[in-house]
């Protein structure tokens, strides 16, 4: 059976599934339950400076986006960092770490952007025995308006500066958590690296308004008739997070920088995808908040089974495996020709592929007598929309055309030579193929 234990920055955990800094990790009670349920690590809910803690709203903190059957696809929150006193959190962390020495415990920190504040809190965090710290430079609401969270994360120079302070006053691993609310995620990642960060974690939540209450004309979650943008997370943000992880993983300037992948991890498969794109482990929040801590058991069994099936014996062997296959559009092989193929035995004759293609794409699917749907190869550009809208898994597939056959759409013989846009005759800037 595959070994799921991970060693991330020298921090060992029984598996790569950590709980992200968020409501599920705000208290000793929750964290103990999480470890007992099987979570490999926990990033404690973000600590603030000594003194009166922040306050949260006393109305709804979350908004949601649903798929069919009210399945939660996206969650938005306007909660702040921990609203419990620093001392209480530190005491609890100390007790928990003592009782769970083999599980990862990370302290998430967000204090004002001055050296004294960081210098003050870091020794106290070190005293808890926590395995490392995560700098919360991502929170997009409430704290950013006070010059913290995303307000730091959006300025690479600040990231580097604070990271340097942390490396100076703290001797365990420093993870910099990045905000997605920027244009190019490689810039803050490079800054973190320049500051000496041991790793980056991403993504934090995305600025969002999930819904508007059409009776009161107030954004949701609504507090006394008003709403504020909050941080969006859950399955809906996974594609955004995967791309940002991959961008950092394949950036020559940050190549090899350890990454903790966050953003919509809901199943073992999501986790494996993050690992393959360069994440050394994953952090989860929304799935736990939706289904409870037990959900990790499916992640563990699923990842383990898949690794066994693929012959991977350790998580390290998976990490980054898909990174070499992430490229820029201009390098995609334009000689790769595929056609949609509909499995008539699997087809349930709903006609969604047909109408999607007919109304919105290339008119490449015929609807024949008896609701038989067939692809017209002479029109099919292999766009994949039919595959995406088909309700039956595996019913429609994209089949590559063999080299030497003729594409009935273009009349051209399919070549197995690789050729991309950079050398394409239609490209004004093309360089002649050698």
């Amino acid at each position, binding site marked *: 059976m595959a070994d799921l234990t991970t060693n991330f920055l020298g921090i060992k955990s029984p598996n790569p599934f950590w709980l992200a800094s968020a409501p599920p990790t705000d208290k000793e009670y929750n964290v103990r339950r999480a470890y007992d349920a099987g979570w490999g690590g926990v990033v404690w809910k973000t600590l603030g400076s000594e003194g009166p803690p922040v306050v949260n709203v006393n109305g709804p903190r979350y908004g949601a986006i649903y798929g*069919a*059957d*009210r399945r939660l696809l996206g969650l938005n929150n306007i909660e702040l960092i921990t609203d419990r006193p620093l001392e209480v959190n530190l005491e609890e962390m100390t007790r928990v770490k003592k009782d769970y020495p083999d599980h990862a415990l990370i302290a998430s920190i967000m204090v004002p952007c001055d050296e004294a504040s960081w210098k003050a809190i870091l020794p106290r965090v070190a005293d808890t025995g926590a395995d490392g710290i995560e700098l919360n430079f991502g929170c997009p609401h409430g704290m950013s308006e006070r010059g913290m969270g995303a307000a730091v994360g959006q300025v690479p120079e600040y990231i580097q500066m604070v990271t340097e302070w942390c490396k100076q006053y703290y001797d365990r691993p420093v993870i910099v958590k990045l905000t997605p609310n920027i244009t190019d995620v490689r810039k803050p990642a490079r800054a973190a690296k320049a500051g000496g960060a041991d790793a980056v974690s991403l993504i934090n939540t995305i600025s969002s308004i999930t819904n508007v209450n059409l009776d009161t004309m107030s954004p949701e979650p609504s507090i006394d008739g008003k709403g504020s943008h909050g941080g969006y997370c859950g399955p809906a943000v996974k594609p955004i997070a995967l791309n940002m992880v991959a961008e950092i993983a394949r950036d020559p300037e940050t190549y090899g920088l350890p990454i903790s992948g966050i953003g919509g991890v809901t199943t073992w498969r999501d986790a494996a995808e993050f690992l393959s794109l360069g994440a050394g482990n994953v952090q989860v929040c929304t799935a736990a908040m939706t289904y409870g801590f037990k959900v990790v058991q499916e992640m563990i069994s699923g990842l383990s089974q898949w690794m066994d099936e693929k012959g991977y014996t350790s998580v390290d062997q998976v990490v980054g495996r898909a990174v070499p296959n992430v490229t820029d559009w201009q390098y995609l092989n334009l000689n790769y020709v595929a056609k949609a193929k509909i499995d008539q035995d699997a087809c*349930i*004759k*709903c*006609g*969604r592929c*047909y*109408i999607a293609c007919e109304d919105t794409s290339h008119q490449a699917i015929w*609807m024949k007598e008896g*609701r038989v749907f067939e692809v017209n190869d002479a029109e099919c550009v292999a766009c994949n929309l039919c595959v995406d809208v088909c*309700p*039956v898994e595996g019913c429609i597939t994209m089949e590559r055309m063999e080299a030497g056959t003729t594409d009935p759409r273009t009349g051209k013989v399919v070549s197995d030579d690789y050729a991309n846009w950079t050398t394409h005759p239609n490209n004004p800037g093309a360089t002649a193929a050698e």
Partner: protein
Amino acid sequence: MTNSPFTPGIAPGRLRPEDYAANFDDLHAPLDAHEALVAADRCYFCHDAPCMTACPTSIDIPLFIRQISTGTPEAAAKTILEQNILGGMCARVCPTETLCEEVCVREEAEGKPVEIGRLQRYATDTLMTQGVHPFARADATGKRIAVVGAGPAGLSCAHRLAMKGHDVDLFDARPKGGGLNEYGIAAYKTVNGFAGAEVDWLMQIGGITLHTGKALGADLSLDALKAGYEAVFLGMGLAGVNALRAEGEDKDGVSDAVDFIATLRQAGDVSSLPVGRNVVVIGGGMTAVDAAVQSRLLGAENVTILYRRSRDDMPASRFEQDLAASKGVRLVFNARPVRVTGNGAAQALEAEYTVSGPDGLKGTGETFTIPADQVLKAIGQTLQGAPDGVSIEGGKIAVTGAGRTSVAGVWAGGDCAGGGDDLTVTAVAEGRDAAEDIHTSLTGG
């Protein structure tokens, strides 16, 4: 309770009051709002949906289900009612298992269709409970039309005509409108007086005057109607019943299932209705099943349906057959009645097994006897009192196109007219289409 299921002969009050209440409650409880959302989420919004094609009234089912799932059941109801003004009743009585739900792609995919019938009921009930009638009449045309029969076909026709701005006189032989919805469907399919409430709701369109106790032939003549109105629609259904043509048919305890059902539907207190200890229902259609199941629900100890052909030939759907079986009705196939025996009152039914061959159905000579205090005949209804001069084909009024009879200015639809299955939903479609045709011919466009 003085009697029990074991009381000999035909007797009322065989059950406790709470048993009657439970037995005649809704066959399928309505979906609540949550259940409706869950059920609606299963619809794939198919292109050119098979369910829509299977519906005799062509309701845009994917659209109305999407309207439910987005929180607008009232809009869903309007989508339904635009095509089928009796969408509320059809949601209750349609054999969806052989229509829309049979062809649902999720039936193909998972053997479990989207619950279209129950979703339709959810939508229409939502709107009707609000007392909203979502249609308004067009400007008055001043044209008057006679509609004979206030059953599904007549009601549908009258509503559509009224909506077009015409004035309609709607005649029915019975004391109430609704036709078979009011008199001929099992009580547990339309509880709480829904049939009557639906007629009242439909009449809110205005422009329709209901005249009850007026039968064609006795109180009305086609000639007079033709003279007094600019068009006539005949939708009086099938008032006659077939004879059993078996010895002893005249004995006490032998009656028509349609009368048994009508009496039950109009009874204020079902416990007062007498039912046999041993009931035999002869026939294989929905009427047979409705009569048999309700006999059991009234407390009959033994109820048997005797059908002369095989199970596969039975007009009642498999769902209805299973419903009967689940209520304790015994289904006997390939058997036909020979004689009813008894001294004045029926005591037993003698039957003979049958076999289908190239020459049709014939008896095998093997007979058996079933105890029978009560024999209910459900062997089909016939057209009664068809007006002179209107062509008849196969026992029904011959029609072409959208219900045009052989007589100019006279249309027909529903069970009395040829073409289509004898279903509520088919009658609604025919009444609606005839109304459109009448409107076109009267307004020249």
